[in-house]
């Protein structure tokens, strides 16, 4: 009897410990129609965000974040962290909807098709996951090399790239490998650090740490073109319909023709130690930010500087372009709101830590991730909200 009681006690402890986390959520809240991350390809979102901004809520994300740790789908924000957790947060209230652990660190954003959550982990035995959010369980998982580059969805495929230079396509339903290519070799190894991008016509844009950019047919894995930009690429490029904006770690940004890979123009700074963040690109402008704190808007065709803003702090997070504003997060713990037309600073907000993660938009608000583990939503409060707050 005593032994049985002890066993039951242990089981209760195991259940309590094991059952604490789940990512079973109401998937009706997710946006099943629109690709959830189309804004991420360019860093531009076509919404009007009213000023002044105020902090609406703050959420504890549990650990630090990679450069693209955020995905917004419908009314749910998915945050992946460097402890290997994925949090689902109600975008309206900032309340936790669910939490699940995957591997030991998830460096980049997750993706969803409205029911399943797909992600790649950078450490752990299994590193590619499909998680059924309706059932709250892992649908399938696959062994793979560590990946910082995240996941891209295309038709029924999920596309990943790893730190050792292999790009793979898996079936969304089963996880079976459809194709894979090695962009490095034993004699000349390379790897993919920067998150992947997908063009509107179904091509994957991948970059490697040796400075080469690849356009790959997502369906077949055939490389359409590749181009050496002359410096390592550790941050994701930004895409528009006709251009690829490639940030490098050595003081240069190179703009390639999306169709051919030909170089259009480049921005090279005198100090080659400066690193470019992932730029934000719209049809009429591309915004770059660098570790010397300089934010510049360029003409996308010519590269001519339209305006510039000098932050006192280094910047490594991708900016966000909205209808009227450019949002920039700095390592000096500041969120800057700039006028889209002039670059004039309209607002600045101090957050708890360095902003190292791309800023996202949700509805009429912006979502900001910062060290050590915070997620903020900033928005203009309505009169009713202000009254409620009082």
């Amino acid at each position, binding site marked *: 009897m005593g032994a049985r009681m002890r066993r039951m006690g242990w089981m209760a402890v195991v259940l309590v410990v094991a059952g604490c986390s789940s990512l079973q959520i109401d998937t009706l809240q997710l946006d099943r129609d629109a690709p959830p991350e189309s804004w991420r390809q360019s860093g531009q979102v076509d919404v009007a965000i009213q000023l002044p901004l105020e902090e609406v809520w703050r959420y504890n994300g549990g650990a630090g974040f990679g450069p693209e740790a955020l995905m917004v789908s419908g009314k749910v924000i998915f945050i992946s962290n460097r402890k290997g957790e994925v949090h689902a947060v109600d975008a309206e209230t900032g309340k936790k909807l669910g939490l699940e652990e995957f591997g*030991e660190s998830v460096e980049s954003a997750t993706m969803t098709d409205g029911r399943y959550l797909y992600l790649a982990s950078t*450490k752990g035995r299994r590193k590619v996951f499909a998680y059924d959010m309706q059932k709250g369980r892992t649908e399938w998982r696959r062994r793979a090399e560590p990946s910082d580059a995240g996941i891209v969805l295309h038709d029924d495929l999920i596309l990943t790239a790893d730190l050792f230079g292999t790009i793979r396509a898996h079936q969304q339903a089963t996880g079976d490998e459809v194709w894979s290519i090695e962009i490095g070799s034993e004699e000349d190894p390379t790897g993919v650090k920067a998150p992947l991008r997908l063009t509107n016509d179904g091509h994957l844009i991948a970059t490697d740490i040796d400075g080469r950019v690849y356009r790959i047919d997502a369906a077949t894995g055939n490389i359409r073109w590749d181009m050496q930009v002359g410096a390592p690429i550790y941050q994701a490029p930004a895409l528009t319909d006709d251009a690829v904006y490639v940030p490098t770690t050595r003081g240069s940004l190179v703009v390639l023709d999306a169709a051919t890979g030909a170089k259009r123009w480049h921005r090279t700074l005198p100090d080659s*130690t400066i690193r470019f963040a992932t730029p934000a690109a719209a049809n009429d402008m591309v915004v770059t930010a660098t570790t010397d704190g300089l934010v510049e808007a360029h003409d996308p065709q010519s590269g001519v500087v339209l305006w510039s803003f000098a932050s006192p702090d280094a910047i490594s997070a991708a900016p966000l372009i909205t209808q009227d504003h450019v949002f920039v997060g700095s390592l000096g713990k500041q969120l800057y709101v700039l006028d889209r037309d002039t670059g004039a600073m309209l607002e600045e907000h101090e957050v708890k830590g360095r902003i190292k993660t791309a800023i996202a938009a949700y509805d009429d608000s912006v979502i900001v991730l910062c060290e*050590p583990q915070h997620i903020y939503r900033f928005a203009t409060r309505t009169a009713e909200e202000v009254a409620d707050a009082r």
Partner: protein
Amino acid sequence: MKAHRWLALLIVAFVWSDQAAIAQYGLYHFGRNKIQYDDFDWQILKTEHFDIYYYPEMQELAEYGASFAEEVYDELEHRFNTSLNHRVPMIFYASNLHFKQTNVTPGFIPDGVGGFFEFLKGRVVIPANGNIHQFKRVVRHEMVHVFTYAKVIRVLRDHRVPTDRFLPLWFTEGIAEYWSGPAEHQHEMVIRDALFSNMFVPLENMYRISGSYQMYKQGEAFFRFISETYGEEKILEMMENLWRDRDFRRVTEITLQEDFLVTADRWDKWMRKIYYPRLQEADAPSLIADGLSYRGFASKPVYYRYNDGTRKVIYTGNEGSYSNVFAVEVDTAFVPAGKAKVLIRGERDNRFEAFHLFESQMDVSEDGKLAFVTKSGARDVVHVFDLEADKMLATYEFDDLIAIYSPAWNPDGTGLAFMSIDQSGFADLYTYDTQTAALRKLTDDHYDVRDPAWSPDGRYIAFTSDRTAVGHHGYYNLFIYDLTDGHIEYVTYGQRKDFAPTWSPDGQHLMFTSAVPEHDGRWSAQDIWVADMSPPSGPQIASTALVDTKPVFQGRRTLHRLTKVTSATFDPQWTDDGNVIFASFEQFRFTVRQLDDVDALIAAPKNTERVDLTDTGERWAFERTEGEDLGTERVRYRRKYQLDIAQGALSQNPVLGTTGGAMVAFSDMLGDEFIYATVFNTGTAGNRDFLESFSAMVSRYHLNGRANFGYGIYRFGGLRYDITDPDAPSEFPLFTETIWGAQGMVSYPLSMFRRIELNTSLSWSDKNIPIRQIDRQALLLSNSISLTHDNALYSYNGPIQGRRSSFTLAYTTDVLNSNVSYYSLIGDVRNYWRIAPRVTFASWGQARMNFGRESRLYVAGGSWDLRGFGFFDVRGQKMWFTSHELRFPLVDFPGLILPFLQPFGIVNIKGALFFDAAHAWNDEYFREDYRNAEGGFDDAEARNNFSRDRNLFAGETLGSAGVGLRMNLFGGIVLRYDYGRRYRDGFERQDKVFRQFFFGYNF
């Protein structure tokens, strides 16, 4: 359970006795003194990211430093892709001698330390050394540490990985060197020597050179390899991948995508491919020049021919021991005629506290007066030693000059030229007339000057300086100062590192050392060169660079390279016999050597260069942060306490209850004042009132003056385990006592090696020992005075040479009830005779005596003193103890024989033969249980045992003898194993054989 309780009791006993009443307990400790000679008026210059701590005399230097720090901050933000969340406290000192006084670290700072980064408060501490370029480089080096630490900690915390792992030391120092700027010529010297001497340490064995200068330079070379082979980004990636694995090899493999040993092999090949071709045309110094010194470090040679014709080469060195000035007699062929003899004994007293071994030259006048510099107390002094009379002649000290380097005689031996750094932190050239005591400042600017040499005609002083147009990149050229009109002229010019000029006896040549950039940008070895000092050929055009120059020597000058060595030469001296005496670096040793026939060398130089002195460009100047228009703010430093450390411990036991405590320490930014607070509770039995067993102590220490003082209050209560209490049961000395009190202490250093300590305490004691029916209250006043001396020289396992001694007189009395009244006398002398270079005979004599009412017991026994007996088993109010040990080497580098030992960093295994003896006795400490019912004794043995407490080994002479092994792990933990036999009854009775294993340094 029991272990917990004993541990808690021991901790309590230790804290209690060590902190509360030093006088009463007769405690003392050795160690040298870190003396705060100067009372700095600290100011803070607040820039965008830094708080720069400086004193007004060095404000300009602080402004340079602030500019350098802000400049490198911006650069490192890019390199590390991060920023700092805090302001960086950066503390500057005007010279190394001021730097040695810092309280930021309790440790002693030797010559040559360029600065350090401290983790607790994130402080950066940097001294100037007269060279602004070097100052900037050190600022960069330390800032790399600051960023590395911030980056790595952030990475680990982001991933919720414990921060108990960090990068290996070779990585952090290597990257700090690499990102400090282009490799210096010293880097080339070390790397070339390591490769050419086959002492280059593979990547997988870098731990073997941990902490050494070679480690710094190999680390720097490794990152140059990484950058050029894999890309600079990989360096940061290694830091960002640290969370992935505890094993840094694995981190490297993940980052570089190849096996660690493959990387190690590639680096090795990369290095050899670069450097081995250079070996074809270079000579090892030992192959071209005969050695004059054979042991340890030897450098800065000078030469003198005595009136009786004796020739001697004099140099500073250490022969693996204290640094001294040595003299070795040589014959006409400059072959040593015997062993080198010590001329000046250094590092043992305040007068010759330290030589600047790597930095300061010596000089001998025509009439045999040796001039040299030592640190002596607060500043450097110039000593003059008469070689003919073999005695000290004079010592010159200058109030305003802090550091002094390289004194050089004028031709008639009445004046000295030297370089000095004053309170401003800038180096200038001075002359001093020994006849009139007139000190003259020849230069007054921000440029570095070094190595003055007076021309044979007395008109010029040659020196080396970075006042050249390319000086801000760290280049040094030679100059001459014309004493007739104060003009300064170029002797050499260009991207060179020219040092240590010395005139030929006829004044027609200047010999010097130089390193020059080679075809691939790397520095050459540092070779001996000669400049022709006859007026140069070519057009005589006035330089536009130096407003204080005149055109006499302008033009083109021919320089002859006399040697092409594998590593480096230093400080050449031109003898009147036409030989060259110099120091060389080879196989990681500095050795004094001589070259024959300098005229022949000049006639057939290795190569010749023509330097163009007609267009020397603008003088350089660094930017500096000044004025509030740059956003800076100046405030006076006010002490604010900040938390240093907080820690606690708690043990929970179902029977004994809860025992625990906590300690917090606060100090100010400069480490001048400390507050310690300790609380603990020994309410272990559960039936004891919590407050009754509550103990607390608060103390404050002031370290910012020459005299350090402290004071505090304390309250101790509850169970106490005290083996020194005479009233406590000898077998299990546990009782309860409550003490309230206050204490004060002053420590006044007479010199670095000697100090006086005063301690006082006043405490109310309520002691209760139920088993002996003792319930005693006393108001205890305890005072002591100690004189302590320590100049011992340490090696891996403990002292190897020198002497340590301490003498203490103390008196403790109950001023209220006279329950307690006793005197304490303690004498402790330890001598370390170095009877051979690697063999030491250590002797320790100790006498301790407490006499009077309730006088405490002294303890002995255990691996620390009386070996073979249990820890603290020997107790008595009076005790003598002696120990003698012969320490000798057994095996060097045992890891070569037993490879599994390699990771433990064991440099050697030493042996020991030891002999210990002690005797403890008590006046009135009897074992009442040996009396019979009538109060008498049943037999003689009972009578004997009555006064000889067998539990305490009192009343008999005890001893032990045996052999032992010593080895040091990781450069810090000494393992000791002793095997011997112990003796009792005055060595008349052999007792048991014992084996003891313990950690700790030799006595």
